[in-house]
């Protein structure tokens, strides 16, 4: 096997050497999911990017359908085709590909480059933790270190930071009649303005769910309903990491958590993953699904399903990613474009504060290991361009999000998109899933168990016990647990 990979390396080295002779023309190829933020990056680079080195650098993005993005990237990396110089990686994939030798460790380059250090320091700590560090360093530690410390391993930069929050129908939540009825029943007001959501708890969320769940023929905001209407929805889907993303938030908010990879090999699984806190959080999560559309019962309520239902005017409020917000406020695709507002995700009272911990979304982009110095230098220049203030502002204006504190603190930031304020306020609460290579097995098994619980085959505790047992064994086998 080694012989072959050497041969491959030799082969590509010659090819690259060949291109290095004509140093002026350099193409940086990047693998990226086929969606708006990456399309923007391509268009914007075409229009504005000139390499400071004077070389003629071209960014060429290979757009790949998101549902198949992992398969393709995984295949490309492991097949040794060495096609990409940069690629977008979901944050939790970092360990897998770093340990396989595909992602480049950037510490040396960052150490030599003040500009890069500045960027790292300007990034939100949650993003540095989730998108860049392996082995993972938690956000609070990163923040303590001022984001940059030479003994932390840095790999990625935010290409598209993301978090989830509430989309709600202001025509319902601000409706006087509904408000009166709600107050009569629950004794509190419906949150109408975005700020009103800052104090919403899961109990309230449950009330909204119960309150707005209506049958066809009943009235809603004075209108007769032609079909059933549902109160609330959030991710409860088996594909990818859907359920996990939302359920993790419940774990954290209830004071539990997931296996702490930062404390490997001393962090236990048993008793943590199936802790009472986690069970309580998970039970709450399951309970609230009763007010969700019936698709929740199938374990197929993914981010797109709730988006679709919401856009079709079937749900009063949902929790979904910022990345999916643009079509919701676009009249061409959404029936509720004019009546949608955004607010923070509900939280749980934990130790006296309203905890809003949530699972970080979005993706970093990373450099691959087979590039020569020249390409690496140009790729890093490209990173710097992307994370420059101007580019970031343009990206945000085009519907994206930024991870740079300087941009987030721009007084106009909130006005560039209706959900920006909510995104910004949610950022500090973000934590991430594991990044170790065993992530996929853990995730797959966990999604399966969560799905069993969601579809009513097992209880919350049974599911979490099974998850804990599996993770314990797996991590022990992998020597990540003593």
């Amino acid at each position, binding site marked *: 096997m080694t012989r072959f990979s050497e041969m491959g390396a030799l082969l590509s080295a010659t090819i690259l050497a060949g291109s290095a002779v004509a140093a002026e023309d350099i193409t940086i190829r990047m693998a990226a999911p086929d969606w708006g933020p990456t399309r923007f990056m391509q268009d914007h680079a075409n229009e504005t990017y000139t390499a400071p080195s004077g070389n003629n650098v071209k960014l060429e993005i290979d*757009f790949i359908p998101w549902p198949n993005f992992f398969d393709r990237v995984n295949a490309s990396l492991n097949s040794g085709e060495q096609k990409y110089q940069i690629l977008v990686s979901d944050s939790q994939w970092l360990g897998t590909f770093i340990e396989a030798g595909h992602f480049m460790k950037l510490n040396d380059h960052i150490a030599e480059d003040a500009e890069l250090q500045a960027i790292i320091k300007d990034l939100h700590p949650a993003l540095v933790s989730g998108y860049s560090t392996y082995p993972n360093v938690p956000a609070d530690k990163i923040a303590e270190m001022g984001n940059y410390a030479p003994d932390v391993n840095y790999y990625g930069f935010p290409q598209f930071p993301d978090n989830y929050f509430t989309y709600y129908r202001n025509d319902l939540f601000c409706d006087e009649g509904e408000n009166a009825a709600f107050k009569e029943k629950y004794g509190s007001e419906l949150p109408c303005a975005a700020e009103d959501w800052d104090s919403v708890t899961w109990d309230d969320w449950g009330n909204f769910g119960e309150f707005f769940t209506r049958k066809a023929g009943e009235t809603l905001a004075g209108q007769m309903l032609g079909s059933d209407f549902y109160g609330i929805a959030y991710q409860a889907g088996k594909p990818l990491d859907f359920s996990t993303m939302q359920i993790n938030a419940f774990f954290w908010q209830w004071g539990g958590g997931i296996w702490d990879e930062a404390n490997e090999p001393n962090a236990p699984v048993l008793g943590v993953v199936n802790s009472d806190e986690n069970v309580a959080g998970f039970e709450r999560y399951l309970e609230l699904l009763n007010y969700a559309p019936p698709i929740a019962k199938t374990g197929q309520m993914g*981010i797109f399903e709730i988006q679709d239902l919401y856009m079709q005017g079937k749900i009063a409020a949902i929790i979904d990613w910022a990345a*999916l917000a643009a079509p919701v406020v676009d009249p061409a695709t959404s029936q509720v474009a004019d009546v949608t507002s955004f607010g923070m995700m509900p939280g749980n009272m934990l130790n006296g504060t309203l905890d809003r911990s949530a699972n970080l979304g979005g993706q970093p982009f990373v450099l691959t290991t087979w590039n020569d110095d020249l390409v690496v230098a140009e790729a890093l220049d490209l990173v710097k361009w992307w994370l420059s203030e101007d580019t970031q502002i343009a990206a945000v204006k085009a519907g994206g999000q930024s991870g740079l504190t300087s941009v987030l603190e721009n007084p106009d930031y909130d006005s560039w998109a209706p959900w920006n304020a909510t995104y910004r306020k949610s950022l500090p609460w973000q934590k991430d899933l594991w990044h170790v290579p065993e992530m996929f097995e853990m995730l797959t098994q966990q999604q399966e168990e969560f799905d069993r619980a969601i579809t009513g085959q097992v209880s919350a505790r049974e599911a979490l016990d099974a998850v804990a047992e599996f993770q314990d064994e797996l991590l022990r086998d992998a020597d990540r647990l003593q």
Partner: protein
Amino acid sequence: MASGFRTHDQAGPVRTFFAWLVGIIYFAPVFWIVLTAFKTRADALAIPPKLVFAPTLDNFRAVFFQTSTTGEVTGSGVWLYFANSAFIAGSSVLLALIIGTLAAYAFSRYPLKGNDTYLFVILSTRMLPPIVVIIPIFLVFRLTGLSGSYIGIILLYTGFNLPFSIWMMKSFFDDLNPEVEDSARMDGSGDWSVFGRIALPQVKAGLAATSVFALILTWNEFIFALLLTGPETRTVPVAIASTIGGEIGVDWGKLSAMVSLFLIPVFIVTFALQNQLLRGVTFGTVRK
């Protein structure tokens, strides 16, 4: 037959009615997809389903033209994918047809020792779930450096279409009267000339059927197209997949438009080749 007791080959009005009814019901989901191609998203997802709606061509426009984040037309949409599909499918089918026809002729006319074993192995490899062969194929591609290149994917599809081409063409050659070829030998033709001038022209329909079926299989192939092609070599099915799971989940209209567009040539070809259909879908093992 105008009248008489003979009824075994003509359907009565009741059976005709039911056959048509079932045909239409069976086709309804396909019809639904085609209809959706002309719908806005709201119409597409409307419940109860909308049969009357204001048709839009936006979905087709979205297929053929790429719009930038600001809404201008910046690219030519899936044209590259179509061109890739045509080139990759075309060359691999042609290659498989050439190599496969030669082999099929040999299997039919010059049986080797263990002829059936060869044929069996050839068919078996084709019966494997793609997911099972993909890992080793990766390793071979890694070894040969073919990954992501046109040659790689064309060779792969050629290898994929070969079993089909061989079995299919063999069934056609088996149907020929070998005396005709002997006759040509008597008339002064060498073996190659017999093959080219006598045998091949007689299986023209077979060549057409085989290439079309191989083309459909190749055209539809998704997983290898996704995994083993690069940005320049990607094909239509991957483009279809990118309408699923963008920032808007499934782009129902665009998906339907692409599926419908893709269906047109297949529908026409299938209609034309209805008599060869059975042979085609069973690798030539069932002829009549």
